[in-house]
């Protein structure tokens, strides 16, 4: 298990224990984190699990592929910290990761 913190746009913060190997969209849905829908089931087809990754963690993530990169263009608030949570898999190296859900994603 690793700890991942999800912070909503209104500042509400939730610490979730995530089993290694689980993607962070599934973990959010299972733990009722608002703002992360995962409509397509985690195949980077819908961009409804857009998150901003805190700067300190961005280098520790696997680089994004072309599909994720393109799908993020469908979101309103993309910036350099944007990722799709379904494409981030929990690993020991990510223990303590902080993710923020974008304003207006619901």
């Amino acid at each position: 298990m690793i700890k991942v913190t999800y912070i909503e746009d209104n500042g509400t913060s939730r610490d979730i224990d995530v089993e290694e190997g689980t993607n962070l969209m599934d973990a959010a849905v299972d733990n009722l984190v608002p703002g992360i829908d995962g409509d397509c089931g985690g195949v980077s087809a819908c961009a409804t699990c857009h998150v901003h990754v805190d700067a300190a963690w961005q280098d520790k993530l696997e680089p994004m592929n072309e599909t994720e990169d393109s799908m993020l263009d469908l979101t309103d608030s993309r910036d350099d910290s944007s990722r799709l949570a379904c494409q981030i898999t929990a690993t020991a190296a990510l223990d303590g990761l902080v993710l923020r859900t974008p304003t207006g994603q619901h």
Partner: protein
Amino acid sequence: MSETTVIIGGGQAGAQTVVSLRREGFKGNIVLIADEPELPYQRPPLSKAYLAGEMPKERLFIKPAAFYDKLEAELLLGVSVESIDTQTQQLALNDGSSQSYDQLVFATGGRVRRLTCSGADHPAVHYLRTLRDVEAMQARFTAGTRLAVVGGGYIGLETAAVAAKHGLQVTVLEAQATPLVRVACPEVGQFFQTIHQQAGVSIHCDTLLESIEDEGEGIAALITNTGERILAELVVVGIGLLPNVELAASAGIACDNGITVDEHCRTSVANVYAAGDCTNHPNPIYQRRMRLESVHNAIEQGKTVAANICGKEAAYAQVPWFWSDQYDVKLQTVGINMGYDQTVIRGQPDSRSFAVFYLQAGRLLAVDAINRPAEFVAAKNIITQGLEVSVDRLQDETVSAKELIAT
């Protein structure tokens, strides 16, 4: 007494309606009635990752059970509705009980079209729509098994792809000249035919199934109009979906290839709504009515229903989109190509990365993006915003996909 919204159907549209009702501030009772015994689950993985055994069952569920508890939504699973009285606003359920409603939502989806030829009831014959359908075929879904797929649409081809990767010997029967004829241009159909053939799948086009005979030992023999006799331990039929309209029709609700709804997802009867695969609905972007088999549509119509129940005059106005995964190929489709008079191909099909733009009188209707997510995203924006495109730029790979929007 608090008001009650009853949702019939536990698929993507039904689950979304529950979620969206609470998000829109609905304070009354929510009751979801579904004839399948499982929590609402996602269907797309059934012919992809779940069939491949790469996805545990728990991951199929759209939300965990605790989620519905938290929303104070009551789920009546494994229960079906026998009849509806829209005057008294009462439902009769198959467990003998009744349920009253203030608002009723049909999210009844569809059921598979079944074979009608002789021998169609052979035990080797399976369909693919529900979790139980997949579980029923899993014991035979093993390397070396001869699989005959009837129908070269998305369900059939996705099944064939998973099977080929698992070492089954796969034959696909398709009535038309190329697969996917109903939804895509011949070039796209030909592309998918080629990648399946490269994976060892035998695709028989222009071929009709005439009957099925029993070969004994659980083996079926598929007899075709071309005189072939194809033996298979497993037959998977994917020949389309029929909308579940009978309950609505018997309650006097207008239906015409689906439950007829307006842009607010309202049916012809007061306080009755419908969402998802079961609806025949107007699309303002295409300025015509349509019925879609689509997760995205189910979700968006669920949201529309919920907003309208909560007194907001929300109108559905979406560009449809779809996806299919086969082998290393991700197809993303945006828009509806019906009525196209021109196709423009960007990139080379041989490279397994290209996009087909469908136009009508110069206006972009739809795109099939094959391993081309940037073109999918660009096209979604172009169609949604009604932007102009030029054929020269669509074809010109020195113009990036993002720049296509800038014209």
